[in-house]
């Protein structure tokens, strides 16, 4: 609210000119708009994401350009802070320049006005009355007082001047709003990460970018308990505790030590009847030596715990290292052995060995239930709970990894039940699924035994031999060469199938047989292979008389053959069956310390009061000069308002009518 014309005099010193420039309205408005435009950047470009994401998005060249411009954390970049600082300086200069005159204006009733200037005012009236000067002055003063005006009388040479004012607090509105902005910015500065940046710049702290256990993070990346502001986060598994929080900084983090220990007893998600989440709650225990006994509280979204100026919020949740009991069923030549049974946890890695081969099992996730569209229903909105699942990666020695998702419970499909396991080689792909049929006992034993027989070369040889003899006998031919080549073909077909399923066999047919014979001979090959597979399967099954049983066996055989045929795409020597689990969740907490908060709130209160004073409490002044005129008196009334000129038109009209009535009979 500066008025430049009032203060400008020619020939300023340089300092004065800088001072005036800083306090000028033009600069202030420019800064307001510059700040607005600068703020847009951070809303268009997502802030504080992992640096690798930016690198992928922009490519190496622009990544560097944007990084040096501080665009990944605009609001604490130097140039943004510079604009803010300039705004604070500009506002301060403005306040310093104008507050004295504002305060004066709040109280000063302006007793130095001349009759001439009153008459020249936009709102001015003059009339004569019969009553005496003293009486008129008294009447006017009383009436103005009743209208809420502060009144002062001054004796002038030609009469008495009444000066009055109402709404002087309007000027306070100016001071409040502008001081509020300074206070809010300073409070915000207290809560910003500027001190951290400074410390980093001076080399007193260093951002940690490695994935280390908390206690191995070096001291230079740890912040001791103190009065500094921070916003940290921690994931605490149920039953565990933490005495630190992590502050995300650019592409790394810092460890902030807390003056207390937080233990998560339980984390809960409640749901509405429709399935949407209704609440996220954590039962928290806070240990502090200063407490007689630990503080037990339940926090939830919108209901944080505030302790000693530290606020602890429910922010997110994740898996807290759910315990998994797994059975590793071999799918390779090791089939037939009992499954290897072991326990692991979510986020745990372990090296697995299969004969010569080895791979690293990295358990990624666990879900207690999977509510997905039911593939057996036509309506995609029909949802079904597929039960628990866990996700993992198998990483080979070369570092390549395939991701798997195994469901714990058998999934029904076409009236049969299967163990379901999804596989993909990159996160951008959809899962492809392996369906392993379960046997009449509900287990994998029958499948495992069938696999074992398929890998048993001697068994396959003898079955091939028998089948060869039967086939040739029906033809009635006897030829050693033919015998040998047919037997080799049969075992070869089985081997081909084990390597790459029916697709592999089809490729073989297409690439080695003459085109003319592909149809007839190819079909013969496939049916011979199917016959072989059936013979191998039934070689281990007790013969049965029941048609129903045979029917079931044939269906199982078909499903098993389909599953084995897709092994090459599944690409894992083992199937992990989730036998049991112990669900452990982790509560994601945010811990913040903002010493500037009450300062900011004070600024907010001032701003609110100030804005309303400024807009809705107009400062109105009335003057009246009362002079002797004949036996009565002459009154010159004038008024002004610094807001709402339209309303003041009406107000002046009403007040002057009223004053005319009380000041005695009008002679006009």
């Amino acid at each position, binding site marked *: 609210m500066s008025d430049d014309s009032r203060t400008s005099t020619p020939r300023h010193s340089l300092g004065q000119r800088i001072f005036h420039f800083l306090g000028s309205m033009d600069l202030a408005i420019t800064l307001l708009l510059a700040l607005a435009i600068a*703020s847009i950047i951070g809303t268009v470009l997502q802030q504080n994401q992992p640096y690798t994401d930016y690198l992928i998005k922009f490519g190496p060249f622009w990544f560097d350009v944007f990084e040096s411009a501080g665009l990944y954390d605009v609001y604490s970049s130097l140039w943004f802070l510079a604009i803010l600082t300039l705004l604070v300086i500009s506002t301060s200069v403005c306040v310093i320049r104008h507050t004295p005159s504002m305060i004066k204006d709040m109280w000063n009733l302006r007793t130095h006005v001349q009759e001439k200037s009153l008459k020249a005012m936009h709102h001015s009236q003059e009339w004569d009355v019969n009553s005496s000067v003293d009486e008129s002055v008294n009447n006017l003063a009383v009436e103005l007082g009743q209208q809420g005006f502060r009144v002062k009388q001054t004796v002038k040479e030609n009469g008495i001047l009444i000066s009055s004012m109402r709404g002087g607090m309007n000027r306070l509105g100016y001071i409040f709003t502008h001081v509020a902005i300074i206070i809010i910015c300073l409070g915000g500065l207290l809560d910003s990460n500027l001190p951290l940046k400074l410390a980093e710049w001076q080399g007193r702290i260093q951002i940690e970018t490695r994935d280390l256990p908390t206690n191995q993070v070096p001291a230079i990346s740890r912040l001791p308990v103190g009065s500094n502001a921070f916003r940290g986060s921690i994931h605490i598994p149920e039953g565990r505790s933490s005495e630190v929080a992590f502050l995300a900084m650019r592409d790394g983090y810092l460890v902030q030590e807390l003056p207390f220990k937080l233990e998560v007893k339980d984390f809960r998600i409640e749901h509405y009847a429709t399935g949407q989440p209704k609440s996220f709650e954590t039962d928290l225990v806070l240990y502090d030596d200063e407490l007689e006994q630990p503080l037990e509280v339940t926090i939830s979204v919108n209901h944080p715990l505030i302790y000693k100026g530290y606020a602890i919020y429910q922010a997110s949740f994740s898996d807290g290292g759910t315990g998994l009991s797994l059975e590793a069923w071999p799918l390779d030549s090791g089939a037939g052995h009992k499954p290897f049974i072991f326990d692991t946890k979510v986020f745990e890695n372990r090296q697995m060995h299969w004969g010569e081969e080895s791979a690293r099992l990295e358990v990624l996730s666990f879900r207690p239930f999977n509510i997905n569209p039911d593939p057996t229903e036509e309506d995609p909105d029909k949802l079904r709970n597929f039960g628990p699942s866990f996700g993992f990666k198998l990483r080979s020695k070369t570092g390549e990894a395939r991701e798997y998702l195994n469901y714990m419970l058998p999934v029904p499909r076409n009236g049969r039940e299967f163990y379901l396991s999804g596989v993909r080689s990159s996160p951008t792909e959809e899962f492809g699924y392996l369906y392993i049929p379960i046997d009449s006992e509900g287990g994998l034993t029958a499948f495992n035994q069938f696999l074992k027989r398929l890998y048993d070369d001697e068994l396959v040889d003898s079955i091939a031999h028998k089948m060869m003899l039967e086939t040739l006998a029906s033809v009635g031919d006897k030829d050693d060469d033919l015998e040998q080549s047919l037997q080799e073909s049969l075992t070869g077909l089985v081997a081909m199938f084990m390597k790459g399923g029916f697709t592999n066999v089809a490729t073989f047919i297409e690439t080695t047989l003459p085109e003319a014979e592909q149809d007839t001979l190819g079909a013969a090959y496939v049916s011979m292979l199917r016959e072989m597979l059936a013979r191998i399967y039934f070689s281990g099954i007790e013969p049965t008389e029941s048609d129903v049983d045979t029917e079931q066996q044939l269906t199982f055989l078909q499903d098993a053959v389909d599953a084995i045929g897709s092994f090459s795409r599944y690409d894992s020597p083992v199937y992990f069956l989730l036998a049991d689990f112990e669900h452990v969740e982790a509560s994601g907490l945010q811990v913040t310390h903002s010493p500037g908060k009450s300062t900011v709130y004070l600024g907010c209160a001032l701003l*609110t009061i100030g804005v309303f004073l400024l807009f809705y409490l107009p400062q109105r002044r009335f003057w009246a000069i009362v002079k002797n005129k004949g036996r009565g008196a002459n009154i010159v009334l004038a008024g002004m308002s610094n807001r709402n000129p*339209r309303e003041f038109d*009406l107000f002046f*009209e009403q007040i002057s009518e009223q004053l005319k009535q009380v000041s005695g009979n009008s002679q006009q």
Partner: protein
Amino acid sequence: MSNRINTLNIEHDSAVAQWSWRGLMAIAAIVLLALYSSVFDSYEIAIVIFTAVSLALLGQNWSGFRRHLIAVVLLSFLAIWRYGHDLALGETDFFLSYILASQSSFMWMSALFVMATVAYFAGLFMRSSFIEKVASVLTWSATTMGMVGLMVRWRESYLISPDVGHIPVSNLYEVFILFAVITALLYLFYERRYQTRSLGGFVLLIISAAVAFQLWYTFGKGAHEIQPLVPALQSYWMKIHVPANFVGYGAFAMAAMIGVAYLLKSWRETTKPQGLLATALPDLSMMDDLMYKSIALGFAFFTVATILGALWAAEAWGGYWSWDPKETWALIVWLNYAAWLHMRMTKGWHGKPMAWWAVIGLFVTLFAFLGVNMFLSGLHSYGTL
């Protein structure tokens, strides 16, 4: 100056009307508190008292508002009574399904607002004060139906299930109705104050646009279904933060539409001074003044709303300010109007540039209100929890 006296209506209603109104509000508040003090927490008690005081102040010199509020209360109670405890009655009961169920009320509101817009323009172009009066009545009716719809929807949410129940200001669908109702009320206030109905069509135009969006949102997207609150929104702050914000948005929208009228009139004054627009619209200085009033009001409420948002954020998101896109855009809107007000109050700018600026301001506001939700991700989308 005497010719301007009638452009402002700040005459006070009779003392009897004033005191009976204040008394009514006091009684309503006391009855509410007496009946429910056992289940109210201190914030809810404060909200009841604050609401009663605000309504008493708003209505004491504004008979239209008094009638509106009484109609809203009576119709809402009628609907609640017809519903009883059975939400299904909304489909079968005649009164509910055709008039008072929230969806029906909103349809009435939409139709009435569009009719009012047409009527205001018809009145303006035909120079008929009778049609303009009809337009005012239509606007009041639309506002009443909108408010009743919100009240009834509030009740309906509790009829779905007590844990689903919440005040209907929780999603884009609901706040669009709030926007229409608040903008209309703001307009009606100034219509009475400035004794002119010729700006009604312009202001109602943006309300009709909101109504059109609303209808598309209902029929195209099925957004009218009442959804339970996500945990982040389960807070008493929502009850005050959102309405305060929409007083701001409504006032800024009104200022922009008056800016449009201002620019049209000043354009026609130079090209066709005897034409309809140049003569029928109120004089430029009045529109200029109204634009300022509207922006000042919007700015005051927007300031309060943003501060309330900060207080809420300090309780829900771990800090009073997170530079979340919605927060940042609120700041941008605030800075924009702060600059506007400085220009106007200190540098004394007025007229066309300020009218243009007010119109541009609407687009900034619109982006903060809609664009952020549509194009940017952040905490206000409630994606993480």
